[in-house]
Every structure is written in C-alpha cells, then in structure tokens.
C-alpha cells in the first residue's frame, strides 16, 4: 500500500522525461502556485481558528457537550464521542488531537476508539471546506448545502456507531 504514492511520482516523472517536459522548471512552478494558494488561505484560517479557540476557552463547547450527551446516547452514539462529533466540522487539527486522546485513553481496539476512528475517517471539516472553496466568490449562498452536509454527517455518525457494534 505504501508504494502507491512513490509509484505515482515515478510514473509521472518518467512520462515527463519521455515527453521532454522541463521537470525542474514545472515542478517549481507548481510549488510557486502552492505558495500563492496557501497565502490566500491564511486569512480564513486565522479567523476560523480564533473562533474555535474562543469557543473552547469560553467553556461553551464543554457545556454544549454536557447538554447534548443524553440526546446522543439515545441515538446510540457513546457519550464519550460527543465532543469529537461536535469538533469535527470545525477543526481538523482539533479533532485529530481529540481522536488521539480517545485512542490513548480507551485503547486502540475498544469499541469507543473504533467508532471514533470510523467517524473521523468518514467525515470532513465542513465549515473549513466551505470557507476555503468559496473564499474568492462574491455570492455565497451556502446555507442549504451546508445543512445537507451536516445532516448527512450526523446520520453517518449514527450509522457508524451501529456498524461498529456489528462488524
């Protein structure tokens, strides 16, 4: 499995050499574009991360977690995972840190950890993606798509917890 990525590089570079593409020039041109693209993301990232930090230190995230725990348990989502479910749409780093914590605390092969892994692997940072994709556009009427994605992510979470019990 680990060989896939180097092989992709190998194939592309060989084809490029055969077709007489200036590999170094084009590779660095791509990186130049990467630099420009990363810089264009920084304002979105800074604003979103500030919001996440603020949400965390205001202890609102803990209160919301406490508040939602009973509802989540009723749907079959272990209460230990409530915070992960809440953080995931906002922050990839935050949820990854939390996932690591869960794995360390409950053991890699426990039901809780397996649920956490599946729901981490099958969902995305919705708000981050919406901010990045549509950063350069003027009209952004994203309420409906975001809502659809959030509903579907939540349904998937319920299903993930169910599947992990069976498989």
């Amino acid at each position: 499995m680990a060989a896939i990525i180097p092989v992709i590089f190998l194939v592309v570079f060989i084809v490029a050499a055969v077709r007489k593409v200036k590999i170094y020039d084009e590779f660095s041109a791509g990186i130049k574009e990467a630099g420009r693209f990363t810089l264009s993301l920084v304002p979105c990232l800074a604003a979103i991360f500030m919001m996440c930090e603020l949400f965390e230190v205001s202890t609102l995230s803990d209160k919301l977690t406490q508040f939602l725990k009973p509802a989540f348990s009723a749907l079959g989502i272990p209460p230990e995972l409530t915070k992960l479910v809440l953080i995931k749409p906002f922050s990839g780093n935050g949820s990854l840190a939390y996932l690591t914590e869960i794995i360390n605390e409950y053991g890699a092969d426990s039901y809780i950890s397996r649920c956490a892994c599946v729901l981490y692997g099958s969902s995305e940072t919705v708000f981050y993606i919406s901010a990045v994709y549509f950063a350069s556009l003027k009209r952004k009427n994203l309420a409906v798509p975001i809502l659809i994605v959030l509903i579907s992510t939540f349904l998937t979470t319920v299903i993930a917890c169910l599947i992990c019990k069976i498989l």
Partner: protein
Amino acid sequence: MNAVFGFIFIVSLIALCVISPADFLPAMLDGAEKSLTTAATLFCVYALWMGLGNVAEKCSLTKGATKLLKPLSGKLFKTDNPEALEGITLNLSCNLLGIGGAATPYAVRAVNALEKDKNEFAQKLLFIINATSIQILPTTVIALRAAAGSAAASDIFAPSLICTAFSTVFAAGIYILGCRAWRR
C-alpha cells in the same frame, strides 16, 4: 458562514466576559498563531502535490484522465468547461487516493472556473461531495491505530468505506433531487 461565525463569536464572547475576560487575548493570539502553523503544514502538502500536478499537466497526463472521466463527470456536474472538468477529475482522484490535502487546490480551481459559467449547481455539488468525504483509504486513522498498538489497525476499513459512501451518496442525492424538484 457569516451567520455561523458571528453567532458563535458573540455567544462565546458573552460567556467569556462572565467567566474569565483575561483569557480573551491569549486565546485569540493562539488561534492566529495556529493558523500560521497550519498554513506551514498545508504548504508542504500543497508544494509536493501541486508540483507533481504541474508536471503531470505539462505532459498532458491530466488531460488524458479528464477525457476518460468526462462522460461521467460532465453529466453529473452538467458542465463541459474543460478547466472545471480537469479540476473536478483531479480533485476526485486525490480524494479517492486518500490524499485529501492535495485535493483542495484543484477543487478551488474548478469552483473558480465554474464561476465563469455561473454554474452554481456544479459548484455546490462539488462542495457537498468533498465536505462529506470520499476517502477510500483512511490512511491517517489506520496509521494512528497502528501506532497505538492495535491488533488489527485496518479492520475499520470496511465500516469507514460504508459510512463514507453512505454520507456522500445521501447528501449528493438529496441535493440533486432537491434541485430537480425545485425547478419543476
């Protein structure tokens, strides 16, 4: 986004003013700092893949892949804009290979190309597909579990695949059907 941001910000601020106003500045600066460290990590991923992507583009490898997928992606996204189709193809391939970080620049390129056609449907569909995650190989998670001493680190492969397929098909399906119903 503006509404969500404003709401969370204001509510958190009110709570913070009551509990511990002194934590405000450190928290905000911390967030800003994290944006830079994240940007640095992202730049490394993008540099690698956009460098490769540019080489692949110049030897018209990506054109081949785009042409191959055009009957499918063109119909699904209702577009024949070649730049957008290329972005969409590369974005979906990166996602399926589990290199999600590399997928973002291509999606943004496709979204900007679609803007010229005013093809809002395709932009939002691409967003939905990406935001519901279509990773086939959850590489990060498997690596994490292996590092934590799991007996069978990849046994979450099947459940993850089912869940990620369900979420994408469900959300994209609802959106497509919803758009059709709206027009009638």
